């Protein structure tokens, strides 16, 4: 076997082990000297995802095929039951449409009476999750939509049923999504029936918690949580989850979406909501 050190009669200034030591020291230096949230580093990460996206797709292909095959089998087996469920759901939705149409008309009239600005129309685009970066340290995803599709930092990201996170960095063809469960995720929310404002904060566990609650907040179990739109980054009223209380009475939120099953997400490309006090032109 060839040795890693110098051969007999050969003089080397550095051996392979010496180079490995220098590399380790360099890595340690990078770890403690480089600022962790430097914009250049964030940009480098995002650009590398743009470059690596085809590789992610290629590696994920066999897994996708296996998952699709399994899903197809399950669907075929449950076809009859699914049909019955869909018929029942369809009937229920048809009944709801009438109520919603009436409520929408009334809401529009009330808005006019109060001279309230209409919420900016939110454009929603679909995206595919190409990389799952969840680890003990971070809870992020990479999706295959970027600046070219109108994605910008701060925009809300929805799963099939509710909010799952927000965009934290954008490349030309990909974006990184900070999940609502990440320790650094803080999203302004409000309870639907109690109208209690709070911040939805992640803690690197399966469910986020509510923080910055008023002292005598009236919290009801299973109350619906929606985005409050405070800060102007996200639209008002995006569904988030259901309020629940743990054994110590501390509130946490059961997200509508299962973050494990996210294959496709929706990016809400809304612009900042205009201030209520600002008069709306042309009215």
């Amino acid at each position, binding site marked *: *076997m*060839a*040795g*890693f050190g110098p*051969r*007999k009669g050969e003089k080397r200034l*550095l051996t*392979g*082990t010496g*180079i*490995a*030591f220098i*590399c*380790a020291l*360099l*890595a*340690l*230096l*990078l*770890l*403690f000297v*480089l600022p*962790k949230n430097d914009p250049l*580093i964030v940009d*480098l*990460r995002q650009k*590398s*995802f743009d470059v*690596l996206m085809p*590789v*992610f797709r290629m*590696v*994920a292909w066999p*897994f996708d095929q296996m998952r699709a095959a399994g899903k197809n089998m399950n669907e075929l087996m449950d076809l009859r039951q699914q049909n019955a469920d869909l018929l029942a759901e369809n009937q229920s939705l048809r009944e709801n449409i009438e109520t919603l149409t009436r409520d929408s008309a009334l809401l529009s009239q009330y808005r006019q009476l109060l001279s309230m600005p209409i919420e900016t129309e939110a454009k929603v685009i679909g995206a595919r*999750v*190409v*990389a*799952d*970066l*969840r*680890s*003990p*340290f*971070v*809870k*992020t*995803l*990479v999706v295959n939509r970027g600046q070219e599709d109108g994605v910008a930092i701060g925009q809300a990201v929805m799963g099939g049923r509710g909010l799952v996170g927000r965009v934290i960095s954008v490349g030309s063809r990909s974006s990184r999504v900070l999940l609502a469960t990440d*320790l650094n995720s803080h999203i302004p929310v409000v309870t639907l029936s109690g109208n209690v404002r709070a911040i939805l904060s992640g803690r*690197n566990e*399966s469910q986020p918690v509510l923080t910055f609650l008023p002292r005598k907040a009236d919290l009801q179990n299973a109350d619906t949580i929606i985005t409050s739109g405070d800060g102007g980054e996200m639209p008002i009223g995006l569904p988030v989850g259901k309020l629940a209380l743990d054994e110590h009475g501390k509130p946490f939120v059961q997200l509508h979406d299962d*973050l*494990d*099953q*996210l*294959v496709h997400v929706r990016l809400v490309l809304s612009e900042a909501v205009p201030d209520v006090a600002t008069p709306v032109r042309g009215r």
Partner: protein
Amino acid sequence: MVAATTTPARRFLQTWVPLLAIFLLIVAEHVPLGRDWLTNMDIGFVFVPMLFLARYSEGFFAPIAILLLGVLKDVTSDTPIGFWSFLFCVFFILVLGQRQLLYNAAYNTVWATFGFLCFLIYTVFYVLAVLSLSVVPSFAATMLGALLTVLAFPLFNLAFDWLSQDDDPLGAY
């Protein structure tokens, strides 16, 4: 001293197959599979090809490539640049230190050495996370990650075993 019988083609494969395997494992780690329990620990399958690389590679290229792959892992894992790079380099150095022992050693000895080095590197991982990151991982989950890595060794080793069969035990040492 008897000259090494490793052919240049085999030597080329001994360097590039593990490097490619490490690259693919770093990328494959992020394939969305829908398994939340696995996201709470880091399973280091990459250490198996790295063990092989450190056992058989020569020259300056391998440690530099390991550093660069560590940077890639840092970039794709959202950890601070230098975190995984340092751990990769330390593991590489530890294996280099065991080359004499590992060379021509019985399979169980290689596995046991890999296990020992894995637990050592995961302890360094934990200490480094405490020192350099705002999030402290669970120690139990860290050690479980190490255990799963060690248990996965036979499976991954199968792929690399055939590459090592042509070497002369008396080589350049």
